[in-house]
């Protein structure tokens, strides 16, 4: 499957969805005005990927800022990853800086809402 790479902008995250390299990562900042439009291609991509995923998928979230509009899109990504896990092994890593209570809390919220293996990973 063709990889999907989106470079970071001032208000949208860097997105790497690369099955060949086995790299799946959303990082940096996500505060777009229109999160719906921004995440649509990402959701479409994962939907398609769920049909025929790698044996192992490790999906990393390493975000610095997330607005509420994005948080609603991110839960959809995670739910799709749950779907991916029906055909392959999936693990989600949610990175947060040790001082960032809000980012930890958001990760904990997602973890609670899904059944896919979900690790909260503190970084210094």
């Amino acid at each position, binding site marked *: 499957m063709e990889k999907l790479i989106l470079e970071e902008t001032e208000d949208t995250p860097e997105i790497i969805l690369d099955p060949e390299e086995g790299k799946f990562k959303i990082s940096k900042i996500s*505060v777009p*005005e229109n999160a719906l439009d921004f995440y649509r291609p990402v959701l479409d991509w994962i939907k398609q990927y769920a049909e025929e995923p790698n044996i192992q998928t490790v999906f990393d979230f390493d975000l610095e800022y997330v607005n509420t509009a994005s948080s609603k899109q991110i839960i959809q990504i995670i739910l799709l990853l749950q779907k991916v896990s029906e055909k392959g092994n999936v693990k989600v890593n949610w990175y947060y800086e040790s001082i960032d*209570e809000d980012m930890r809390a958001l990760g904990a919220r997602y973890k609670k809402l899904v059944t896919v293996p979900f690790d909260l990973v503190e970084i210094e």
Partner: protein
Amino acid sequence: MAKESTNNLFGAAYDLFKRIGDSDFEYVYRGYFNHNITKKILILADKSIAKVTGDTQATLQKRIYYIMVEGLQNITHHQDEIANDRNFEKYPGIFAIQKSGEKYFITTGNIVANDKVADLKSRLDVINSLDKDELKKYHREILTGGTISDKGGAGLGLIEMSRKSGSKLHYKFDRLDDEYTYFYLQTQLPSDNKNDDDTIHAHCSMDGVMSLHQRMTKDNLQLLFNGFFNQENLLSLLAIIKSRSNLPLTTIKISNVMVEMLQNIIKHGEKSVNTSAGVPGVFFLGQTGNETILTSGNIINEDAASVIAQRLEFVNGMAKDALSDYYDDILLDFDSADAKKTGLGFTDLRLKSDRPLKYEFQKLDGGNTFYLLQTAIKTNK
């Protein structure tokens, strides 16, 4: 009761908001200036100016930029000079850029030692007494052999500010105590409006800025943003907040809350006129005791007010645990396709705010309402 905020500007926010015109703005930063903050302030101001001047006034925009750079450097110079002194914390510097009609006003303020005042004043008076050609000559003289001041500039910065603006340098000295005087410096441009009606610019005049400074000091405001909001200046404001990062955890929280509040204005605020510059509003950030207070104000449709009030009462009335569960519910509710209606914003703000969300509505003419919202974040070390 302690419940009442000492942040008096809450009530005055509408007066602030309405005093500026449709394509006008005023940004004021009060506090400690470091290189990073200075850079971000420049970006914010420059982008905003670009939005309203358009391509036709590239020269003006460059001049304003230049003057802002000089002014900001002035503040940091003075700040460095007094680096070992607590007094800079006691009397923080201030930078203001205001646009009123066709005119821009750039004001800086900082403390200087009392024994430097006379020298500074005489330099300013010399500069103000010279015409364009004389200034050019004076500039060259100093460049080629004048005495360099301990600030390293021999007042070159001041001369350049005067030359670039083409107008006199307005200044005021306000003696604070036995050691220090507050020094205000203002540049106005462009200078070609001969008979300017100063009454429309009253809030930008030296007196106007000084009285605003007084208010900001009294309420301990660090940032005031009055004008139009768009995604671009939201990001610049975010960068400014990030640069003040002496308290990392608090900074993150403030940033998160600020993004929601400002995007709320951008998404739901009414425009009085159709301008591409953004949605008019006012935002300020201040410190009361151990809380950082964030306040936003904007115009909404009168009919929206009751809906907003209901939602705010709803989130304020809930215990945080229950509210957190409610957050999960909305997160998983994909049926309401309209992202605007999820209500996540208020829920998130209430969860992050350390006290109930404070709000106020003020009915305006023409079916509009001015809507104020305030959140508070405890300052954690």
